[in-house]
């Protein structure tokens, strides 16, 4: 009996000292996966993959289970285009260039009449954006969050664009530099480089007329108007 006990104790000690171990690789210290983009970042050249991977797991439509309860529910970052889905305007990635410009990757940002809490993105428990990816996103935002490297058409009719503009755009973007009431930004200053037909179409659906999307031609007309008639610090923007 005694000998067996000693043998077993010895075997236990040897086992614990040599093979027995208790260890778990949780991936907790692993760096976040990084998307590398060659060339100018556009939605179709890397940004789509990046935004879908690092934002689209929560910001999708319908709201994924993994998303927090208080997330905005009209934002789908797995697609580029803002669109009407199930009768509701669902913003796509063509709507987020402004947030990146306002620094949402560095600090909590609140925007317009958005009902969500000011938040920095990604959230702490999300897949983090690397410094290189942040640079891609900022470059993309600065370029107007383009879908691809095809430039917007320059053949828009500014006269027609002006008429469309006063049907709703000027309610917020009355002044080129933007304005606010009681601390709430109503119409942020327009960034000339970020005026794109995609953004115009997105804003039109979201803020002006969710029942009647703009055609590409109408968006090009508004863009032509904005680029040729609306300039910073100019008090009147009516045609």
């Amino acid at each position, binding site marked *: 009996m005694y000998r*067996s006990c000693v043998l077993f104790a010895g075997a236990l000690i040897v086992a614990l000292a040599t093979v027995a171990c208790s260890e778990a690789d949780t991936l907790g210290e692993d760096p*976040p996966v990084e998307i590398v983009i060659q060339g100018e970042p556009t939605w179709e050249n890397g940004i789509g993959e990046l935004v879908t991977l690092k934002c689209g797991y929560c910001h999708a439509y319908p709201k994924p289970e993994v998303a927090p309860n208080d997330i905005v529910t009209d934002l789908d970052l797995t697609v580029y285009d803002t669109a009407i889905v199930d009768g509701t305007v669902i913003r796509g990635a063509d709507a987020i260039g402004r947030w990146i410009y306002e620094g949402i990757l560095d600090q909590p940002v609140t925007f317009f009449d958005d009902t969500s809490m000011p938040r920095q993105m*990604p959230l702490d428990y999300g897949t983090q954006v690397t410094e290189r990816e942040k640079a891609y996103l900022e470059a993309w935002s600065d370029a107007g969050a383009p879908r691809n490297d095809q430039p917007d058409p320059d053949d828009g009719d500014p006269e027609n664009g002006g008429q469309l503009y006063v049907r709703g755009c000027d309610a917020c973007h009355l002044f080129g530099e933007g304005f606010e009431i009681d601390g709430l930004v109503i119409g942020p200053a327009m960034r000339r480089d970020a005026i794109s037909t995609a953004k115009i179409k997105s804003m039109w659906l979201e803020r002006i007329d969710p029942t009647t999307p703009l055609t590409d031609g109408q968006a090009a007309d508004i863009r032509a108007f904005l680029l040729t008639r609306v300039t910073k610090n100019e008090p009147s923007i009516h045609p």
Partner: protein
Amino acid sequence: MTGFRFIIVLLFSLPALAWGDTTFQEQSGRLQAINAYLLDFRPAGAPTKPDKRALELVLDLYPQPSIDTRVGRKDEPIDPPNLVPKFRGRYLLASGLHLGAAYAPGIEFQDYEAEFISLELGYRFTLAKTHFALRASYSDGDVEGPVTEPDVTDLFDFQNQGVDLSVGRIWKDFEYYGFLGVNDIETRLDVEVDGAILRHEEDTYYGGLGVTWRRGALFVNLEQNATDDFLRNLVLSVGYRF
């Protein structure tokens, strides 16, 4: 020998824990898998076929490995229990069939409350002085407590299903064995703070080596478990055979 060799390779030449680029989904999935496998119903006993019908009552002790719970940039000071006890009953028939079960009634322990049931059904047989056991197991339960951050009550739910084959030999008072199996888990983590729901499904291989020391009706078991390449844990058991 091939099976044993595989186990040896699995246990002793486990690579340095792999490093790579990851996503929060992979991190949270891995954490859920580790928690589920740490509550799994492993053999914790040699496959020796009994001479006659017997009932075993066993206390299994699961020392918990250190767990880095970081997900993304979130690094909260979670302090889970260092040891998880589990009471197991095992009914062995002379034919080689055996039934086993473990149940935790949901007693609060260090801010955590675990309630689960585990079942096993197996068949033991002997060939040329070598003992074999084919076993299927099932575990279902949940853990309430601060899984993602302190002072919250998250809910972790898991279901494990496994099948394994054990092979053992007897030497004096010792019964040595190794086992290899495959496990399927389904987990769900409800995060209290955000209302987020994280689900994870995974199939993985597991294996291990163990030794039972038996003296009369009393026995002690030490089992080294390895789950794929990301979890190694011990199970210490003390039991009595009636």
